[in-house]
């Protein structure tokens, strides 16, 4: 039987406000445990929550970015559960009326752009952190109360590839809006996946399993693939009913498997009710004007790159897919270099070196200005394309200006026709037999002469000039 995969994703994005969702404690890096706390986020009796206006605006910006409905009036609820990292015994979240609902975004698949619905995005607060040690658990509440935007997709996603494409697009949008650092390793962009299967052609939704603890794109893909395979095998072996139950499973990255968290299920009764400490959020009119002014988003940028610079869709999508990469690219272009050269030096040469050293574009040892300068030096024929790669290698390891590096490595291209002609004459007279063969029709030898000249010039001769002068001499 052929199956269809049905995936819905829940993403928790930590908003990059300066203070917590309901109190003025800083959200910035803390010098010590529990220092960024106060009676409100520690749930002392009588302390009352007050909503952070910036978190509201950031949530609204996200709403505009995904063409969603922004509810002028939304409600905070209490979601009740007991855990030491949640001092109040409930999390303040939104339930019936989230601040943002009914949006969508587009993902690129092999064949087409696909629309993925976003059911809702609501504001809530993060929990603290527990460290388990021997017979005790230690609790740090610095993170407790940090604003989160929980973004819930429709079950529109049909494969693990699409899930990753959706998350990457969402990640890019959040970064473009600058509403979150969206750092997966540090947990400011976290994902849970709801996965089920159904026979192809069947519209019903079957039992879904929630997978938690997915903190990299690679793990998300592996976890979903594993889970889908588990469902299909259970179906084919006739044990679907007993093996696939509605539950939460944890992904074990070391073993590449998902494991049941049975036992927690019984307590998943959150008894939501409107928080009596908070009136409904009524968004002031001026917030709508302010939040609607969102920057250019990845899809628009991709289209503009194609139209304005004439670069291909693949590269346009690759560059626009990351705000940091797009910023780097546009900075390079501001130095007046050719867009196609900028694309290849950024996405091929620099990217390969970053990849090899495990660095991200933001930590690139070579900044946009230097890379642009390097391209400029190729364009004005100071160095050859090949020499530029050596210069880039050097710049990757050393703090130096481009011209300095060219000088130091002695890679300045010889563009002086007289100097090149002298080298050519030398090579030709040393290889008279080959010259004769060439003139007798062995044209393949032309490459040999070019190679010899380049070698004699230590790779510094301008190859185009070498070609032209050689042709002149060999007739």
């Amino acid at each position, binding site marked *: 039987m052929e199956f269809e995969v049905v995936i819905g994703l829940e993403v928790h994005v930590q908003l990059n406000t300066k203070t917590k969702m309901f109190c003025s404690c800083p959200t910035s890096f803390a010098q010590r445990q529990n220092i960024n706390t106060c009676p409100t986020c*520690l749930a002392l009796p009588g302390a009352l929550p007050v909503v952070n206006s910036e978190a509201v605006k950031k949530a609204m910006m996200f709403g505009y970015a995904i063409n969603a409905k922004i509810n002028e009036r939304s409600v905070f609820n209490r979601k009740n559960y*007991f855990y030491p990292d949640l001092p109040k015994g409930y999390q303040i979240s939104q339930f019936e009326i989230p601040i943002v609902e009914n949006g969508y975004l587009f993902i690129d698949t092999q064949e087409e752009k696909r629309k993925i619905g976003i059911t809702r995005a609501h504001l809530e607060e993060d929990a603290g952190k527990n460290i388990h040690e021997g017979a005790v658990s230690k609790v740090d509440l610095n993170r407790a109360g940090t604003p989160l935007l929980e973004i819930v997709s429709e079950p529109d996603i049909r494969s693990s590839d699409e899930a990753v494409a959706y998350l990457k697009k969402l990640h890019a949008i959040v970064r473009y809006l600058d509403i979150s650092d969206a750092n997966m390793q540090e947990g400011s962009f976290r994902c849970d996946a709801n996965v089920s299967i159904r026979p192809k052609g069947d519209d019903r939704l079957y039992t879904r399993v929630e997978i938690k603890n997915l903190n990299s794109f690679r793990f998300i893909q592996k976890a979903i693939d594993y889970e889908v395979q588990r469902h299909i095998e259970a179906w084919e072996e006739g044990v679907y009913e007993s093996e696939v139950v509605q539950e939460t499973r944890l992904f074990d990255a070391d073993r590449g498997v998902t494991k049941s968290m049975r036992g927690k299920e019984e307590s998943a009764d959150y008894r939501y009710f409107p928080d009596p400490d908070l009136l409904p959020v009524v968004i002031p009119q001026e917030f709508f004007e302010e939040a609607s002014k969102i920057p250019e988003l990845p899809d628009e940028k991709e289209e503009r790159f194609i139209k304005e610079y004439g670069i291909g869709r693949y590269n346009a999508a690759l560059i626009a897919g990351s705000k940091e990469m797009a910023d780097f690219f546009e900075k390079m272009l501001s130095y007046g270099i050719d867009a196609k050269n900028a694309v290849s030096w950024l996405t091929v040469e620099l990217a390969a070196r970053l990849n090899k050293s495990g660095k991200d574009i933001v930590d690139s040892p070579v900044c946009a200005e230097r890379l642009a300068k390097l391209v400029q030096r190729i364009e004005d024929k100071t160095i050859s394309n090949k020499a530029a790669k050596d210069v880039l290698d050097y710049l990757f390891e050393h703090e130096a200006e481009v011209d300095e590096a060219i000088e130091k490595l002695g890679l300045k291209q010889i563009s002086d026709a007289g100097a090149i002609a002298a080298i050519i004459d030398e090579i030709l007279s040393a290889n008279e037999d080959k010259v004769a063969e060439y003139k007798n029709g062995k044209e393949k030898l032309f490459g040999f002469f070019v190679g010899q000249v380049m070698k004699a010039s230590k790779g510094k001769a301008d190859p185009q000039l070498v070609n032209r002068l050689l042709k002149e001499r060999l007739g």
Partner: protein
Amino acid sequence: MHIDVELLRRLENLSMLEISPHKEQEILTELNRFLDFVEIIEELDLSKEDFRFNPLNGGTPLREDTPRVDPEISREILKNAPRSADNFFVVPKIIE
């Protein structure tokens, strides 16, 4: 609504509280009396009301995003915690 022994067990589980067997009957009676009292509110006809109704006009106050921290507060609170170490609150182990 009526709370029976089964529901009480479930509530114990959800709230992580344990009620000793000899107290069970007394607590059940009390909880049911609370519910009976609150049920008076059922007499109101709210069928025409929007569930978002709130007796107070306007929205919740909004606050500027300006940080403020007083390290003394957390020090004081940690000092009063039943158990703490290295600026952490310390609780009985919560995972197996």
